[in-house]
């Protein structure tokens, strides 16, 4: 038997476990590199060229270029690492969170002001989408 991964049935959620960390290692280290101003400059000047310096899959590079955070996470990215990308873009955590939900930033902000996303219908895959 293998280890249980009971968190697989949480809707709309990717748990960053050791398997994901392995898959996303280069993606996350690339993101980390953007904590240095000089690297941010180089990345902004030519994103593709900067990405090509990292042993990332083409899929991972594409997801970064597209700023598709859900895709990045499916490919092993972790949100605290990926935060260095949207910080480089001058965007806030709330903005990034909104894009991952498919909501506008305004609608997301209003949802948070009204008490956040309800747990109702959002705890198990079978009842997701009703929340």
């Amino acid at each position, binding site marked *: 038997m293998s280890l249980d991964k*009971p*968190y697989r049935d*949480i*809707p*709309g*959620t*990717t*748990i*960053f*476990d*050791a398997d994901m*960390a392995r898959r*996303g*290692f280069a993606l*996350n*280290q690339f*993101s*980390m590199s*953007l*904590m240095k101003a000089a690297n941010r400059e180089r990345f902004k000047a030519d994103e593709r060229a900067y990405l090509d310096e990292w042993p990332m899959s083409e899929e991972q590079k594409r997801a970064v270029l597209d700023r598709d*955070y*859900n895709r990045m*996470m499916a490919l092993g990215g*972790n*949100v*605290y*690492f990926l*935060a*260095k990308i949207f*910080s*480089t873009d001058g965007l*806030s*955590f*709330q903005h*990034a*969170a*909104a894009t*991952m*939900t*498919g909501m506008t930033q305004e609608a*997301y902000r209003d*949802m*948070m*002001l009204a*008490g*956040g*996303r*309800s*747990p109702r219908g*959002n*705890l*198990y895959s079978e009842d*997701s989408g009703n929340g």
Partner: protein
Amino acid sequence: MARINASVYTSHVPAIGAAIDNGRTGEDYWKPLFAGYDYSRQWIAARKPDVILLVYNDHASAFDANFVPTFAIATGEEFQPADEGWGPRPVPPVKGHPRLASHIAQSVIQDDFDLTVINNLDVDHGLTVPLSLMFGQPEAWPCPVIPIAVNVVLYPPPSGSRCYALGKALRRAVESFDEDLNVQIWGTGGMSHQLQGPRAGLINAEFDNDFLDQLVTDPEALSQKPHIDYVRLAGSEGIELVMWLIARGAMNDQVEQKHRFYHVPASNTAVGHLILENH
């Protein structure tokens, strides 16, 4: 002998740090949140600790994907605020307590906790936001701080019961230190939040309030809560709450609750706050 007399629990949302640093605490959005810490600033001014053991997690600031310690303790002289990508927070450097920290490391490892011992460590919002909430904006932090960093980013974090047991080991370590010191332990992070994926923005006020209740009155039972409950019910980042169990484990079974506060939202997160004293 050194003693742990009190513990503080608080969320450590980066946006709270930004609001303080940019002078926006008086805005409508932030006012109710900071009001919840008015009592706390008076309380700590009256009960000034000699040292704080500050339990927090790094958020891909000091530790990269190559090195993930489950529990780490920092024994250095001074810790700089980390540059989290937009320059370090404009807060004072954090002074450590090398002698007590080394003593704790030695004691807790001999107590079968497999700590990583770190000397120099840049400390991110997880550690500095709680200091700002409790102490405001002083020229220098009023006392030394020993950072205790917990992995809650790479799954699996340490179990709730492991965290609770670490708290008890930290207490034994403090109580075997030969200097008279008034020590506080702080547990930070949480409450419910999820920063990622289509479910981002999840807030579970019922879960959070039950957690606050049980942390005060029945921490032993709370420490048995499995990880899956945190991530399912309180969001993928809600798992940070296991760090509160470390602080609670270092306290008496029976404690006096001095303060409790709960507020939604701070950016994506529910904010919880407790002050507990030993008597």
